[in-house]
């Protein structure tokens, strides 16, 4: 009966708005699929056990750990990575703020940091610094010391709130 299980799984999903059909190994996680099969190297595979956040991507509207989701589970999913979010200008204000505030140095954590931060910002409230810090607590940055990242996210939250009122 074990033939009911597949070691290669067919999936059909969209990645950054484009339809993708693929046959993936049963144990492959999303980040390896995105990086190795689709050449989307923005999201990083680092700790691969959910601790660092470098692999954070958007799946069906939620920020998730790409290393803790199998590609086989992505059948029917809508996936966005930093490449697509950049090309569509969906988060250009946040990216500009990261540059303006020196919120990245090596940039390794940045794609995950941006996806996580955008999830908080998209809720539309004006988060406090403590709330921003809490929301990003699962994303490690080895370079910046975080303060500049909080500055950048806070400035975008204020900017978007100001625009909403105008």
């Amino acid at each position, binding site marked *: *009966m*074990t033939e*009911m*299980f*597949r*070691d290669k*799984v067919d999936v059909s999903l969209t990645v950054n708005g484009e339809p993708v059909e693929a046959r993936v*190994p*049963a*144990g*492959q*996680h999303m980040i*390896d699929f995105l990086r190795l099969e689709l050449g989307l190297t923005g999201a990083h595979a680092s700790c*691969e*056990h*959910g601790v660092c*956040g470098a692999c*954070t991507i958007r799946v069906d509207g*939620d*920020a*998730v*750990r790409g*290393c*803790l*989701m*199998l590609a*086989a*589970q992505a*059948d029917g999913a809508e996936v966005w990575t930093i490449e697509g979010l950049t090309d569509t200008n969906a988060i250009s204000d946040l990216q500009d703020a990261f540059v303006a505030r020196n919120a990245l140095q090596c940039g390794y954590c940045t794609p995950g940091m941006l996806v*996580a931060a955008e*999830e*908080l910002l998209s809720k539309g409230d004006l988060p406090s610094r403590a709330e921003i810090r*809490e*929301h990003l*607590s*699962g*994303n490690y940055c080895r370079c910046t010391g975080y303060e500049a990242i909080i500055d950048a996210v806070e400035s975008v939250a204020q900017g978007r709130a100001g625009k909403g009122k105008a």
Partner: protein
Amino acid sequence: MKASAGGYARAESVGHALDLLAGSDGQGRVLAGGQSLIAAMNMRLSFGDLLVDISKLSELSGVVVEGDTLRIGALTRHAQVGADPLAKTHAPLLTDAVSHIAHAAIRNRGTIGGALAHADPAAEFPACALALGSTIHAEGPGGARDIPAEDFFEDVFTTALNEDEILTAISLPVAEEDEVQILEEVARRSGDYALVGLCLVKRTAGHRVSLFSVGPKPILAVGAMAALDAGDLDTALDALSAEIDPPSDTQASAAYRRHLAGVLLSRAVARLKGDTA
């Protein structure tokens, strides 16, 4: 490191999932949110599993009130539990617990059934289930079965679930009008597993106190509960200290954990008084 899976199958229904488990020659492994299992697979702590992916079974997701009972489907994600108005009204302990579990991105996929089945001794939901007097619902080849939370958690990562069973839901009595539910925990950083955690529930029938991260499984502190019913915090603290046997590890020594347990009980009782005064 890279995960190794023996195979993968997407379950179309609970019945299909049970068939898959039954047909897996003991190699089957339920995949829900994957937030513990895929991490373990990536680290090769778990390998060669035949994965039964139940994550698409929408019938196992959601929160409902049935009479005096709140029922939460196994696949309800931590973030959904945290945002659910019925849970907030009828089991605020669970709402509180969610804010202590991991980080937002993990809460977006991790499920309450997965947390209960995984039975990490440091996890919040199992201890909440004990404090709230919950029932765990399971389905297997022989049909459905209800397991009181007090009989469900057996050891580190070990529960009363059989290998061919699936946890389908948890249910618990809805909170009484003036019931108070309090969760206290100490962790080194936001989102880390607790060094020690404590749940305190006060209802007409009396106090219920459960602890997590103080031993191989979450426990009900029955001695402390009886002393609190008698209105004696000092005796409750002594009883608590005697009924836990916390481990020493890289995170904290046994003595520190024992000390924290007392601190958390005192804090919870202080909040209780504040709330009911």
